[in-house]
């Protein structure tokens, strides 16, 4: 979805067939990197409740099959994106798959509590790839969309780690909650949320922003900041007493937060052909 927003939000447009093929092959590339991640992480997926029903731990897919699917679809998606859009987009997709499967899954995830911070880049590339498909170059707006997901990812996963604590403990994944404690994690969530709020609201002033985006950003960021503040104020006793209600609420809101921010960017792009959208018509 974020790749589609990057593609449609760009100032230049692709032929609908090229746009459809580009989004399809980016999605296939994302699926391929997911298959490679599940092949490599099958051992820890099996011990975590959240991931134990994935295809490999549940026995529906053999590890070798997942590896073959991951490698095969990676090659196919990169080559086809190069043909459908351009070489830079294909190179970015190849780098994203490499980053997610090798840098994040094989290296960072099990070795550093900064796993989710640096690894978040893998999920942040798709809108940039979409933008590059349309324009052939990486503009400031593409970097802003990248940064939006990159800074959003850590607080999103740290909130999950707070209320799924046993999962990460059992799997031995060095999440911040395990290595630096839960108080530090709460502080980190607030700090990253403040950075995110500044970035998300400032994006409204760029060419991908506009009144619709600004309205959505102000409302969503106020709600997000309020929940992050509440997470910071609480301690474990409070959280356990109400079953991590605030942390769960923050996590759910984070999903809606990202979806609606990109939805607002898409709305601005969709309004432009009618003379609306962006700031130009005001």
């Amino acid at each position: 979805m974020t790749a589609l927003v990057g593609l449609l939000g760009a100032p230049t447009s692709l032929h609908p067939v090229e746009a459809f093929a580009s989004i399809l092959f980016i999605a296939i590339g994302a699926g391929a990197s997911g298959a490679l991640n599940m092949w490599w992480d099958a051992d820890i997926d099996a011990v975590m409740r959240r991931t134990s029903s994935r295809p490999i731990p549940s026995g529906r897919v053999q590890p070798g099959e997942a590896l073959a699917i991951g490698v095969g679809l990676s090659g196919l998606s990169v080559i086809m994106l190069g043909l459908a859009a351009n070489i830079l987009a294909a190179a970015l997709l190849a780098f994203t798959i490499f980053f997610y499967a090798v840098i994040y899954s094989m290296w960072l995830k099990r070795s550093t509590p900064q796993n989710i911070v640096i690894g978040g880049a893998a999920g942040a590339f798709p809108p940039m790839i979409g933008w590059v498909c349309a324009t052939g170059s990486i503009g400031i707006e593409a970097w802003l969309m990248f940064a939006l997901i990159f800074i959003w990812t850590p607080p999103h996963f740290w909130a999950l780690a707070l209320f799924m604590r046993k999962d990460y403990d059992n799997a031995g994944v060095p999440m911040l909650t395990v290595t630096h404690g839960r108080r530090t994690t709460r502080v980190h969530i607030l700090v990253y949320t403040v950075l995110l709020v500044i970035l998300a609201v400032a994006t409204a002033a760029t060419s991908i922003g506009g009144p619709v985006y600004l309205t959505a950003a102000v409302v969503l960021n106020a709600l997000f900041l309020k929940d992050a503040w509440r997470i910071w104020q609480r301690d474990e006793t409070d959280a356990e007493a109400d079953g991590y209600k605030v942390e769960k609420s923050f996590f759910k809101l984070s999903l809606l937060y990202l979806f609606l921010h990109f939805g607002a960017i898409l709305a601005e792009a969709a309004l432009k052909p009618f003379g609306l959208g962006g700031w130009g018509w005001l």
Partner: protein
Amino acid sequence: MAIKVEHELHHRRKGRNVGVALLLVGFIGIVVALTFVKVAQGDFELPRVEEASS
């Protein structure tokens, strides 16, 4: 005993085989459509060789 042309495995795999066939047809369709669009847009045209003048 009559020879069974259709093995039970063929029945079980039918859905998967149809799925693979549809995927391949879809893929061919995308490649054909992309080719038409690229040719129509002139993406495959060779650069013109400048004729030497005088």
